[in-house]
């Protein structure tokens, strides 16, 4: 079916609301054609990933929009960039990249986007409500918006995010539509110990496994505790979106469109049901680490991918229990400015800094040179960081729970507790 445009869409495409809006509408309609959408729909917000500098193409695109007078028509938040504007001394990269990154950030601010600089916009005070259509980019944020908030965004990439924000329109296709939000493949937790079911470390490992096996099929997870908190759903979604093409998941009895397994599947039978055992989880956990040689000293720890939530900082405080990390270990936590503000009010920031924790805002340690060279291995509690950091930074990574990361950082060498991963 060909794409039908409203009169307002056509006027925008014809340049009646400016050159930038015409360019943005051209991109939106071309993507809509590629998705075989019948029409466009109106969105109420956007999250923009295009502000992360990755080369000249991103800058050329933003400059073209800005030169055409681009302004967003809906509230738009900005994703992480390459620079920590609150802690600029952390940047170890070259001056040209820094200048290009800064220009890109300024261009998007100039278009009216909010300088939130976070990959976890759902941790800001205002967030999309159930059923609202938005255009979000940033793979982990997309999954959270769809799965946990029940808002509706397709799995958008760079460029279309800002083009939708400028036009206020998005393709009526993909995860915007009921028919594409039904679960297709069921993952059932079997024989997992209670300690692991109620531990933060399960979610990233499970997500990694689910994304890998689901690919582009919409996964349903059955067997998580009903009280599973948001930060675990975040970690699960972020991991699944790294290893798969996952833009949404259902967790039975937890996420809003999955009160029951039947509801999650939209009344259809599952195409496939996969049992997840402790052995599967151990294999997925070990697959997140790139090295088996952990005899050397630990080089660094990085937490907060996606940006740490207040609850996760709370867990880190418990895990460190006032201890100071080894002087040979760099210990980073990535977070957003809002969360940093909250933990500083609680006195946690000062406490963590006394323990030797360096907080990073606006960016993330795996997309920009902040860490010193790690010659042995780095540790993380994030499946997403474990997935991407080896390629991006050229380092070996070992995955562990936040408790393992804290204990290892204090000891200066790997400390890993295996008990909760055992068979029941």
């Amino acid at each position: 079916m060909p794409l039908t445009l409203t009169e307002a869409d056509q006027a925008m495409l014809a340049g009646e609301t400016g050159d930038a809006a015409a360019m943005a509408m051209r991109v939106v309609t071309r993507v809509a054609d590629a998705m075989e959408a019948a029409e466009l729909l109106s969105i109420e917000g956007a999250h923009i990933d295009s502000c992360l500098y990755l080369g000249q193409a991103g800058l050329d695109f933003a400059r073209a929009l800005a030169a055409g007078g681009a302004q967003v028509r809906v509230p738009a938040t900005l994703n992480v960039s390459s620079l920590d504007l609150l802690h600029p001394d952390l940047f170890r990269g070259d001056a040209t990249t820094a200048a290009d990154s800064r220009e890109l950030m300024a261009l998007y601010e100039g278009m009216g986007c909010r300088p939130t600089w976070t990959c976890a916009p759902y941790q800001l005070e205002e967030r999309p409500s159930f059923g609202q259509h938005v255009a979000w980019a940033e793979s982990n944020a997309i999954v959270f918006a769809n799965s946990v908030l029940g808002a509706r965004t397709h799995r958008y990439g760079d460029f279309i995010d800002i083009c939708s924000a400028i036009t206020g329109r998005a393709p009526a296709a993909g995860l915007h539509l009921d028919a594409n939000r039904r679960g297709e493949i069921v993952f059932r937790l079997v024989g997992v110990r209670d300690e692991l079911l109620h531990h933060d470390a399960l979610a990233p490992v499970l997500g990694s496994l689910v994304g890998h096996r689901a690919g582009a099929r919409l996964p349903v997870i059955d067997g998580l505790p009903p009280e599973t908190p948001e930060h675990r759903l975040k970690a699960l979604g972020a991991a699944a979106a790294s290893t798969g093409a996952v833009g949404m998941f259902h967790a039975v009895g937890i996420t809003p469109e999955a009160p029951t397994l039947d509801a999650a599947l939209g009344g259809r039978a599952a195409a496939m049901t996969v049992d997840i055992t402790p052995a599967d989880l151990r294999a997925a956990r070990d697959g997140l680490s790139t090295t088996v040689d952990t005899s050397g000293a630990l080089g660094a720890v990085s937490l907060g991918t996606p940006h740490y939530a207040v609850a996760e900082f709370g867990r880190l405080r418990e895990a460190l229990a006032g201890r100071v990390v080894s002087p040979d270990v760099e210990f980073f936590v990535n977070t957003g400015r809002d969360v940093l503000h909250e933990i500083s009010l609680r006195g946690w920031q000062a406490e963590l800094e006394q323990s030797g924790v360096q907080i990073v805002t606006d960016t993330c340690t795996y997309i920009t040179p902040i860490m010193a060279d790690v010659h042995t291995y780095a540790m993380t509690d994030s499946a997403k960081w474990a997935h991407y950091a080896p390629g991006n930074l050229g380092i070996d990574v070992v995955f562990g729970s936040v408790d393992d990361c804290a204990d290892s950082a204090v000891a200066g060498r790997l400390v890993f507790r295996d008990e909760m991963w055992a068979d029941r």
Partner: protein
Amino acid sequence: MTVAPNPVLPQRVVVAGEASGAVLALDEPLSFWGGLSAEDGRVIDEHHPQVGACVTGTVLVMRSGRGSSSASTVLAEMARLGTAPAAIVMIDADEILATGSIVADELYGRAVPIVLVPEADYPAITAATTATLTLDGALTLT
């Protein structure tokens, strides 16, 4: 035994274009951001079975997309630098890659053609040595 058609007709033409190149069939999907170096077209994802392979100029075959939203920018940047695949052949649509290709066309007149093919024809495509894509999305295999 069924004989695969040659040329393979597309399920959907996502981004139209003509291309020809050696077939590089990926054993697993690849996130272009965090998975590819835009500078030289090499797979940098340490978890990927084909880490080190070069996608530049190939007809890149993978079942579906994976991972990052930033893949749009990486594909556009690769098109700008001349390190992009000649074409991308998939079973499941990936709008993140489609957007990168469309914007590479807008900015530089260098779209990377993308077609979706039927599941049944996938084995024949992955087994081919070279593939030639025409504007109508037909894929001739040798």
